[in-house]
């Protein structure tokens, strides 16, 4: 469903990611992990077509993000690192606007908006101005806009950041439900979240992939914290050697 191959992105002199490859299938939730500045947001921005890679390709449902950008963008729901909100709109006006530009027909718009208001816990604030909402509620609006058009690929950059504990549980349940017939990529710094949610884990460090494996394989005889710390502490050394040492 999502196929990332040999992706490299340079910002001038700085190489943010180099030669990244991984895949995510339909029905999978892929946890994208890595320390601050590892290149998670950069990778997601390229996958969603916001900016081009320096080299490498991304395929969404078989379409190339560069050449068939439109077909790809139609299929993607994206929650950027900072939710892309218009502070002067109310929640409902905003969601209706996003629904329109994401191609929802006018007749289905009200239903779609009601659905995400319910699933993202926004029923109490539909007519509040977004700029006046608390941080957690703004994050919920951000999630709602990513899901409004029932996309087949969801790209979520730190989706549960700033949410209260109950809402975190609700959103995790929601992501789990959604993933049944979709592909989800989410980045997070909360490792228990990955343990609960994800099928597959990709860890990236200093712009390079250090591990790509199923969660079950990685955590067979150790915790995800251990795995994470082990892989990011060895910089760009060969992963297999250290893995042997701890086994």
């Amino acid at each position, binding site marked *: 469903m999502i196929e990332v191959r040999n992706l490299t992105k340079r910002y001038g002199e700085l190489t943010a990611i180099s030669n990244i490859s991984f895949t995510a299938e339909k029905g999978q939730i892929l946890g994208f992990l890595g320390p601050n500045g590892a290149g998670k947001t950069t990778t997601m921005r390229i996958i969603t077509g*916001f*900016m081009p890679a320096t080299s490498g390709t991304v395929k969404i449902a078989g379409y190339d993000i560069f050449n068939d950008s439109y077909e790809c963008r139609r299929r993607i729901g*994206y929650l950027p690192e*900072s939710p892309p*909100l*218009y*502070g002067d709109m109310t929640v409902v006006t905003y969601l209706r606007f996003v629904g329109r530009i994401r191609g929802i027909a006018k007749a289905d718009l009200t239903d779609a908006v009601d659905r995400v208001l319910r699933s993202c816990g926004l029923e109490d604030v539909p007519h509040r101005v977004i700029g006046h909402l608390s941080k957690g509620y703004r994050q919920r609006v951000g999630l709602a806009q990513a899901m409004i058009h029932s996309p087949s690929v969801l790209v979520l950059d730190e989706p549960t950041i700033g949410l209260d504990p109950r809402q975190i549980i609700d959103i995790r349940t929601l992501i789990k439900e959604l993933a049944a017939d979709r592909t989800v990529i989410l980045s997070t710094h909360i490792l228990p979240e990955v343990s609960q949610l994800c099928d597959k884990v990709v860890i990236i460090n200093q712009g390079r992939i250090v591990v790509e494996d199923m969660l079950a394989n990685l955590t067979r005889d150790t915790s995800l914290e251990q795995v994470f710390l082990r892989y990011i502490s060895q910089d760009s050394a060969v992963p297999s050697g250290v893995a042997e040492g701890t086994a």
Partner: protein
Amino acid sequence: MKNALTIAGKELRSAFVSPIAYVVLTGFMLLGGWFFFNLLNRFNFLVQIYMSFRNPEVQMRLNLNELVVAPLLGNLSVVLIILVPVITMRSFAEEKRAGTYELLLTSPLSIAEIVMGKFLGVVAFLVVMLALTAVYPAILLVYGNPEPGIIASGYLGLFLLAVAFATVGLLTSSFTDNQIVAAVSCLIVLLLLYVISWPAETAGPTLAAVLRYLSLTEHFSEMVKGVIETKDLIYFGSVITLALYLTHRSVESVRWR
């Protein structure tokens, strides 16, 4: 096209919830009223002088169009040079700063739709803005006998001028994520276009013709006199198309940098 209208609607709505729109509209109305009041005063003064000279022939030649409407539109055009950059500065710069640019560029919208949406939004705002000042010529039509055709032609000129200014504003806003930078660079370009014909007086005939042709205001003043010529319409059309095309390229380059 449907998407462009959706974006235009959003632009217009957000313009009218921000205080900028009201400051701009009020300022434009106030200045327009001040110009109108003073021009009318001067007109009355002239009428009275010629009446006291008992010179009905000259008095008949005093013309509301020439002495009130034309200078009013001319002054408004100068005010537009300052106000239009303020209207357009947000268009792209604010989206980039707020991160909503990421939403627009990852939605299934073409860049043409985004640019057209922004353009139509600002055009609608300019229509409101100019329509508000139409009360002044309307007063003349009620209480005097100016030539309505010349007023209409002048207003068309002012509208085309404002739209051309706005496309320059969209272009400079697409270069930056800073509204002040967008506004100031637009202002500078518009002032340059305003004074570009100054050397024409002393330059050789070919250069003078070129400079005059480039000047937005030269074409505008023809229309204020009531002369609608194809060459002026083509000129405004080309400026608008060129600026929109460059804006398209600029947005595109941000996407595929």
